[in-house]
């Protein structure tokens, strides 16, 4: 395990050091201490590293991550794991707004709650939230899976495309063109795998599935009031 003191060595040195690690590096285990809510920690990592951040982070921690496993032993600020391509990001605490925004792959696990717009415009990422999520989550979500073990706020899945949403608790309201869909056996299996990857022991049968009604895919003036 290599330890990087962010307070002592600074952000630029941290990210450039992580970027310098190649795919087959032996130095895979990294620990970042004294993050103190700093922004843009461990962004753009492109190697199979195992990075542990000892504390809470600011904006965009693990942004555009590829291949790495990044564990945040605290809370995460806005835009954690934004546009993630692959790998995993696991947050022990809560996540602020836009968690996993536009993510294209990989797995984001939030063991606490997530604020508004979790999974906004997601494009293939899988997001597993152990707690609740805020309003406008999965807005314009295009692909991937959002699993919510607690409750969902207002306007869930507004203007949804092909992403799947699974919620165990209540949904305050559904957004435009988002509807509840039948939970078929294949969805149970998909959800079982997501929960396992999300380090969550919830029972898949307790969840309901939501998806796009696909009524707004092509503009129809009769649907104008939905926008």
């Amino acid at each position, binding site marked *: 395990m290599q330890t990087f003191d962010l307070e002592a060595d600074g952000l630029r040195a941290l990210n450039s050091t992580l970027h310098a690690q190649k795919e087959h590096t032996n130095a895979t285990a990294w620990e970042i201490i004294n993050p103190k809510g700093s922004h843009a920690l461990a962004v753009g990592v492109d190697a199979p590293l195992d990075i542990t951040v000892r504390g809470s982070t600011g*904006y965009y921690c693990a942004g555009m991550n590829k291949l790495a496993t990044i564990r945040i032993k605290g809370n995460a600020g806005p835009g954690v794991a934004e546009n993630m391509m692959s790998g995993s990001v696991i947050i022990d605490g809560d996540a602020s707004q836009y968690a996993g925004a536009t993510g294209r792959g990989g797995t984001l696990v939030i063991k606490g709650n997530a604020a508004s717009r979790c999974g*906004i415009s997601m494009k293939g990422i899988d997001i597993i939230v152990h707690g609740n999520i805020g309003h406008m989550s999965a807005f314009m979500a295009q692909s991937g899976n959002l699993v919510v073990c607690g409750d969902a706020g207002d306007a869930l899945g507004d203007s949804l495309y092909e992403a799947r949403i699974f919620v165990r608790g209540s949904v305050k309201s559904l957004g435009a063109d988002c509807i509840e869909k039948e939970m078929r056996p294949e969805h149970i299996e998909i959800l079982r795998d997501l929960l396992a990857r999300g380090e969550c022991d919830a029972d898949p049968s307790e969840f309901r599935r939501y998806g796009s009604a696909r009524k707004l895919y092509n503009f129809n003036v009769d649907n104008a009031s939905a926008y």
Partner: protein
Amino acid sequence: MTDQSPKIPQTVPRQSATFTNEINSEIRRAAATGIYDIRGGGAKRKVPHFDDLLFLGASISRYPLEGYREKCSTNVTLGTRFAKKPIELDIPVTIAGMSFGALSGNAKEALGRGATLAGTSTTTGDGGMTEEERGHSKTLVYQVLPSRYGMNPDDLRRADAIEVVIGQGAKPGGGGMLLGQKITDRVAEMRTLPKGIDQRSACRHPDWTGPDDLEIKILELREITGWEKPIYVKIGGTRPYYDTTLAVKAGADVVVLDGMQGGTAATQDVFIEHVGLPTLACIRPAVQALQDMGLHREVQLVISGGIRTGADVAKALALGADAVAIGTAAMVALGDNDPRWESEYNALGTTTGAYDDWHEGRDPAGITTQDPALAARLDPVAAGRRLRNYLAVLTLEAQTIARACGHNNLHNLEPEDLCALTMEAAAMARVPLAGTTWIPGQGGF
């Protein structure tokens, strides 16, 4: 006795200046369909523009440079503020962002070829980076848009500069639009969307909301790319003084400012014609903002929206821009709205010069389409050469004017070289009305 009384004269039928034939035709179209009109391009209404300015030229008080003998530099460097690798361009005319999806792959390739031959940059668009354009563009600017279609760190790193798009002049405050006819398999895959749907991208970025957030977003982009790439911030012309100020405070290396004549692939006609500022009205407030911060020329200003001639280029630079960007004019140079396709434009219910249904994907010139047969009409090599020629003419024309004004560098052009033909243009450009010393709006008048 026959009736010799004269026939009573009739007045000529009078058309309404308010309810014109064009307006009435739109009312009838709206009544028939129930939906607003969508089209491509920029504002078609007449607004104060560069044509309303004139250069004064040299005389006794200034002496000119020899047009064919004395050097007049055209090169420009963009991104000198923070980036380790600023962009070096031979000419101050760049190619604006236009998406693959809106344009065919051949058209994107042609833009890259033409820009590279001319020694300038081209820009991606709301659909990600294609191999055609990266492969044929020596200098490529990668746009970060609200939709983030195709966004990935590998393309960020292989870009030469990054442009965070806040808005564009044709539709400031609006998101992208690409209708189902153009969402082919390839476009759908790049954008992670189902084939054939109407794609309406977001108008706000998904992971930041205000200028304080933008500063952090720019930090993230710089960290991912090792602080090498210049970061541009593109804004639509609405409140150019404040938006330029905020973009610079957020950390932009370059501000790209797009007026309402700037084109779009598709949006509502009412949006294009009724939202935003003319390009001419944008430049001086933006320059003023840079000057007030002491950063004019350190943060470069790129102006776009209705640039057509070398005179337009020279006027934009004289008003304080460091470079300009062209989109619509570049498309015309490639072959858009060419009279050779007149019969096909007629079949689409339009005519050469007026064709703007770019969203329908049936472009006879093969530029704004994803139809393989139509796209094949555009030879990217020949079209790229035409673009290169056009860019060369813009540069030569701008040099001609600069030399006549006594400048050995295009960037030495200044407002003092200009006068205005109308009070509106004088007020917007903050140069005197021709033959006077009066600048409306300045000095309390």
